[in-house]
């Protein structure tokens, strides 16, 4: 399996330079080769485990509770107006 760093980096929203991409490419390929060890096992009828505990929906009554203020929600924003996060223009 040969991983396309360029394609994956784009999916992952990571800008990767050419040189960096080459190093990642060879490292990721050797890790993936190691992971192919899993193919030694026949798992045809084995259920996948996504979680070790038996999970149930946790329900609660729909009661109003205090949440953090709009001001607090914005304190860590790199850029914001008085009420909103501000991002680079999306629509031309």
């Amino acid at each position, binding site marked *: 399996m040969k991983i396309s760093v360029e394609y994956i980096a784009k*999916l992952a*929203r990571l*800008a990767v330079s050419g040189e960096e991409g080459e190093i990642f490419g060879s490292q990721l390929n050797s890790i*993936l080769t190691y*992971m192919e060890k*899993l193919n030694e096992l026949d798992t045809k009828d*084995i259920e*996948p485990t996504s979680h070790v*505990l038996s999970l149930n929906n946790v329900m609660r009554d729909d009661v109003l509770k205090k949440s953090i203020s709009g001001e607090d929600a914005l*304190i860590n924003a790199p850029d914001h107006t008085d009420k909103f996060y501000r991002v680079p223009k999306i629509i031309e």
Partner: protein
Amino acid sequence: MELYKLNISEARELLDRKELKASDLLDSIYKRIDDIEDKVKAFVTLTKEKAYQMAEVSQRIIDTGKSFPLSGIPMAIKDNMCTKGILTTCSSKILANFIPPYESTVTSRLGDKGYILLGKTNLDEFAMGSSTENSGFFTTKNPWDLERIPGGSSGGSAAAVAAGECIAALGSDTGGSIRQPASLCGVVGLKPTYGRVSRYGLVAFASSLDQIGTITKNVKDSAILMNVISGNDPLDSTSAPLPVPDFTKVLGHEIKGIKIGIPKEYFIEGMDKEVELSVKDAIKKLESLGAVPVEISLPHTEYAVATYYVLATSEASSNLARYDGVKYGFRAEGKDLMDMYMNTRAQGFGVEVKRRIMLGTFTLSSGYYDAYYKKAQQVRTLIKRDFDEAFKTVDVIVTPTSPTAAFKIGEKTEDPLQMYLSDIFTISVNLAGVPGISIPCGFTSNNLPIGLQLIGKHFDEETILKVSYAYEQSTEWHKRRPGI
């Protein structure tokens, strides 16, 4: 004796007998930090001012004669647990200025019981690593040998406990991140059962594997902290709705007749001879205390590292998608929104985090999901079954915590796969969701600590604590401290 050397129960006794003031204990610890922190570099942030305020509140409660279990006890918290109003960085440049507007459940529970927050400790960025060398800020040093790594990812917490820069600490463990640094620093590290401790406010790495636990000077302190942090939390739907026992009650009970499983797959080629000998001696010691060793097999052990790195990186790629430079954290410039995302993440994340995000993005990508992600989930089932099977005949499983003692800084940074393989003995425990503890069981000829891992059944921390305590009380290893 210097006050910073106290453990939780010793400090509790002195504080409650009014022979010690919370502020004096704090003075001693900050003095210790002033003296050695330049060398150890365990902390990302110190919260001295807040600590003295907390000490004052605790002292007033102690003075009423009705102290809480942690009143006046100074602790360090791994910097991936949110502390309201206090910098929480995950040792990542992308969160270097992040101040949480809310408190994690664990620190809120510690607060309710009177603890004092000394500061936040260094980790491998987003808890991805085994040495703290992946920290976005600096590498923590092993207090036993400053040229060596303290283990990771909770290396800052483990080093701080070992060096006497705190009385106890919290860490988090996704593939060994509490147990391995505890082993390498000669302290006690407990990863509870998945679901035993709320993850609310723990910055997510791999949500089906992450678990918060304790790093302490001895087994009893671990039990004391577990009493405080365990239990169902309405804010974490994966926290188990089970009653929490008093974990200190079983300490001191005899372990006669306890069956300890020795998995043959854990005594492998390439394992350090001194580690192997120490662990085998520890098993003999347990036998002399009445435990019955039973050879067992965990046949899928050799697939654990591959399974783990597929699942953990997949979950990480999804969890870390939130760092986009919009709501919090670092933002880089870009000519449009996409460009801003790409640059923010490229500049904000370190190399190992990027590597794992890409690996996880790949294994979840269209056309590869079944071959990697689903396959790994199926093997996870097989690994879990191995443990279920073993626990039909034994009460505890005993293994080395790490195949070697602490390695040199820089020794494994070039080859990510070699670094991953250093987690070989701890990873299966997270995949199966069972509890595991590392306790000191010896030293190499270079005077580096060696750890013994005890693994228990789901929600049976009591048995591993009981056996660990019995071992600890019949040995002197836990009393040794680094000469720093």
